[in-house]
């Protein structure tokens, strides 16, 4: 009787645990099982190990690619190489800070973005498979030949958000991407705009 009781309790425990194991795999490359919630996994100081942002307007493509140290801008047949540091911090209270510093022999560019982050999703995606970033401020500065130009943005309220699909969200690595295609007709011609961002993050601030 005692053994039967104990067996029954263990089955109840198993039933309580099983749904958690199955339901926590959200992104394609997420592990099958983890003790950490998605919030705990995301909320850390991260360095960019890879970043690629591509903007295509019909046949014209401009891309910026970062491999963890070099930042390469490609525009048509031209390419420019700079050294860079890129990082992002997600705070448990729901804020994030994105920092970039890109420099070469002639210029130094810095970018700081702050805002709120939200997990979202539904429909064809899983809930919490999407990460929405709601930018509340940015400061861009460019120093060239002793002259500094600054671009400022600040905002509040129900701002629009950029949205990324979280492919992998682990304690030591994050992979996410965003791709938006826009097709419309202008002056009888079909116009195609594609913006793609691929981000891989690794543990630790640079």
């Amino acid at each position, binding site marked *: 009787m005692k053994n039967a009781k104990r067996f029954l309790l263990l089955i109840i425990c198993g039933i309580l645990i099983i749904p958690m194991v199955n339901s926590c795999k959200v992104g394609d490359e997420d592990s099958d099982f983890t003790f950490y919630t998605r919030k705990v996994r995301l909320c850390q100081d991260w360095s960019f190990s890879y970043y690629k942002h591509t903007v295509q307007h019909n046949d014209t493509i401009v891309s910026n690619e970062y491999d963890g140290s070099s930042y390469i801008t490609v525009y048509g047949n031209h390419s420019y190489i700079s050294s860079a540091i890129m990082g992002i911090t997600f705070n448990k209270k729901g804020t994030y800070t994105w920092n970039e510093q890109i420099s070469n022999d002639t210029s130094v560019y810095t970018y700081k973005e702050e805002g709120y982050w*939200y997990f979202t999703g539904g429909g064809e995606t899983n809930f919490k498979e999407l990460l929405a970033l709601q930018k509340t401020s940015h400061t861009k500065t460019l120093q060239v030949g002793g002259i500094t130009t600054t671009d400022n943005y600040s905002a509040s309220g129900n701002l629009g958000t*950029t949205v990324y699909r979280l492919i992998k969200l682990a304690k030591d690595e994050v992979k996410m991407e965003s791709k938006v295609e826009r097709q419309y007709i202008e002056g009888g011609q079909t116009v195609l705009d594609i913006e793609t961002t691929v981000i891989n993050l690794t543990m630790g601030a640079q």
Partner: protein
Amino acid sequence: MKMKKNISLTVVIVISIILSSTFFSCQKADTNKLAGDWKVVSLTSSYAYKNQKYETSFDGYTKTYTYSVSDTVITVPNPTPHDSTITYYETTTYTGEIATDYHTDGTYVYTETFKNNTTGVTETIGIDGNWYFTDANHSSEYGLDDLLAMQVNKLSYNTNFGNIYSTIYQGNNTLDIYQILTLKKDKIVLRMEKSENINFITYVTKTDFTLEPR
């Protein structure tokens, strides 16, 4: 010995419950609350920057669109010199309807059809998209399901005057964010309120709208 066994079993159960509770952090938001066919019964909207303001009001039947610009601060010499502001108004009225259908599969369809009461031209806007609830955020002070995110996938604009525009989006298009003020079976109230300061120019948007079942 018996005591020890009971304690270890209790520990196992407590751990299981704690682990199971983390399951709730993986669950989907309840998508059934919003699903249904709705019509807009009232709407007020304004967009302002610098000295210009665009305002829209709609009572479920008539839409009034007002553009105003305040300009030219002039010195009035008599009787006492003082500055004065002139405000120019332009108002257009329309008759029509706005409908939004939220589906349980996470998609929505928005349609609005309005006839310009002066020109007689009918304009139709159609939007297909996805909708999402957002998770809680301590800093912005919104809980789970407090915000509704809408993602446009296809936008078309037609008139009976021959103008047809259509934009198709694919992928992770930007989300428009609305506060859910009321979410009941027979009434939804949504609000978008934001202020953006871009290089010292402030752009302010305010939109409130109420939906009821069609």
